[in-house]
Every structure is written in C-alpha cells, then in structure tokens.
C-alpha cells in the first residue's frame, strides 16, 4: 500500500507531470508564470483545492453517483458544481481564519475553478477506481507537480526577460518552446516508477 502511494505521488510529480506531460492546467501555466512569487502562490492555492477536490470527488462518486446510477449523465455537471462551490467555500474559510494566508493566495482562488487540472483529477479518480487514500495522494501529487512546473517555468521566464528573443517569438511562442525543452527534461524520469 505504502509503495503504491509512493508510486502515485512520484508518478504524478515527475514521470507523468500533470502540466508537462499530461497537458492539464496550461492556462495558468502560461498566464501566471512570469514571476516566481505569484507562480508559487498560485501553485499552493491549486494544491490546496486539488487535495480537497480529490476527497469530494471520491465521496460524490462512491456514495451518491454510483449507488443511484446517476454516473453516466450527471458526473460532469455534478463535479463542476462541487468544484465551483468548494473553491468559494475555501476562499471564505481562509478569509475568516487567516487574512495573511488570504493575501498570499486568496486572489488566485477564483481562477482555480476553471483550471482543468482540478476537473482532470476529479475525473481520473473514478476512472482508475482509486480508494480514498489513493485519491488524496493523486490530488496532492498533481498539486505538487503543478507547483514544481510553474516555479521552474517562472524562474526561466524571469531570466528570459533579458534574452535577445527574435521578435516574432516574443510572448507565448517562446514560452511554448521553453516548455517543450522542460518537458523533454522531464521525460528523463520515464521508468523511474512502474506505471500500472
């Protein structure tokens, strides 16, 4: 069991990084990766929501959708609604409990709803028949992988500001090419854990 959890976490951080190899969460990856500080803030907010979503998706799937046979036609609608309200709830709770934490990543929270990494993790849980612990591991691993990719990218982009990039490639184009090189580096982790 512990070994399997380790494989899920390491697998989703390095081998099948959610951003660089599964292509989830591209919008924030391009949008908020120009400064390391905001990138890490966004990463932490997403990790937090992802872990909570994993728990919510597990219970929703196994205690409501599956027993009542609603899974085929209500899965997408109910998941997106639960994610949207969860994000609102998290935002309100953080504002109440810790204003400092809210200042650190509260502003990123509304953006997390339409981040497809959250919906992606929610959909992967029933697809792989994960139990509760594995679901949490997947959410946590996806979040850490996302934060890692965002932090690496923002570090490179801060230096890229001073590079002499051909004019046509400025903006998103050079970010894509850099992401391609990063993704190639992450391919070096292939075979680190057996994928099941």
């Amino acid at each position, binding site marked *: 069991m512990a070994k399997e959890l380790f494989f899920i976490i390491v697998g989703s951080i390095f081998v099948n990084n959610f951003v660089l190899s599964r292509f989830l969460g591209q919008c924030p990856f391009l949008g908020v990766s120009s400064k390391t500080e905001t990138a890490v803030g966004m990463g932490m907010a997403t990790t937090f929501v992802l872990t909570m979503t994993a728990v919510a998706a597990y219970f929703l799937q196994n205690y409501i959708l599956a027993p009542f046979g609603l899974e085929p036609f209500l899965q997408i609608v109910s998941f997106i609604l639960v994610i*949207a309200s969860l994000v609102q709830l998290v935002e309100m709770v953080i504002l109440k409990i810790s204003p400092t934490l809210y200042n650190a990543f509260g502003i990123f929270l509304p953006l997390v709803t339409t981040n497809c990494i959250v919906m992606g993790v929610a959909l992967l849980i029933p697809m792989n028949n994960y139990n509760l612990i594995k679901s949490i591991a997947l959410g946590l691993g996806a979040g850490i992988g996302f934060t890692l990719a965002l932090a690496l990218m923002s570090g490179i982009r801060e230096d890229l500001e001073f590079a002499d990039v051909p*004019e046509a490639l400025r903006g998103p184009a050079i970010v894509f090419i850099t992401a391609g090189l990063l993704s190639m580096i992450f391919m070096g982790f292939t075979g680190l854990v057996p994928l099941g």
Partner: protein
Amino acid sequence: MQLFKDFINGIWNENPIFKMVIGICSALAVTTAANNGIAMGLALTFVLTCSSILISLLRNVIPAKVRIPCYIIVVATFTTVVDLFMKAYFPSLYEVLGIFIPLIVVNCTVLARAESFASKVGLARATADALGMGLGFTWAITLISMIRELLGAGTLFGYRVMWDGFTPWVSAILPPGAFIVMGILVGLINMINRKTAKDTHSH
C-alpha cells in the same frame, strides 16, 4: 455583413489557439494524429455553438449575479451530450481522447465566448461567432496534429506519405513535440501578422 465579420473573427483575427492562446490543454494533448485533432475540434464546435445559442436566448432571463454558474451548467449539459454520443458511436476515438472530452466543460474558450459575447448579443450574431470560433479552433488543432503526425509517424490521416527511408521524429508525437510545434506555429502566425500589418500601413 456584421454576421460575416463575427464569423471570420474567430477563424483568424481572434483565433482562440494561435491569437488568444486560450483553451490549449486539449490542443496540446490530443494532437498526436490528424483524426484526433478534427474530432476534438468538432466536439468543441458543437458544445460552443449549442451553449452560445442557449445562452443568447436566455440572456434576459439569467440574473447577472449568478450568471457564471448558469453558464457552467449549460456548458456541462452539452458536454455530457457529446461525451455520451462519442462513447456510444465512436468508442475507439473516445478511448484516445480520454478525459479531454469531459474537460471541454472547463475549456476557457467556451466560457469566454459565453461571458464576453453570447450573453450580450442576439441569436444570429451569437451563432455566427460561436461557429467561427469553433472552426477557428478546429483548423488550428488540425494543423498542429497534421504536423505532429507527419513528423512523428510519417503518415497523414493514417496513410503513409513520407518516402521509404524516412526516419520518424518520434519526439513530435511525445509531449515535448506538442509544445515545440505549438511554439513555432504561434511564432509563424505572429510573423505573418506583422508582415500584413506593415503592408497595410505603408499603403
């Protein structure tokens, strides 16, 4: 005339993939073969057009404060329709596209058009805009997938087109290839734009 303008807008001027660079998760993930690109593009066009029509019709009924949740439910409904349709009639394609069909629900293009366009204009303009955006997405994603398939497998739509001694550049159909092909294409489109902008300027 206005309708035609709305239609062309999505195909070139504000192409969601190459110009706005939104909703690109699926554009990168499923573009390993030309067939997948077309299928994904058409699926998105269907969801986008149907939701834009419905949202435009309901624009005076939906209260402003809860509009985003309403849009999300409309989009989720049509995504479910596509999801079940593809699962039933194109199971092999559905297998390849995987979670990216249900993920249309969080595709920024759909929500962005609903919020910034369909909720403000009449039925005809909303439909023209949605069709243009959808087709703009489809041609962009098909182009990316054709390049990747050609370089990575030496085929096009499954038919062998490269010469005999051609060694496939496997990286093109692996994740890094998606990013690099995308980057080069966005750069090329930028170059064409700057050129046309300069030409019209000098006249």
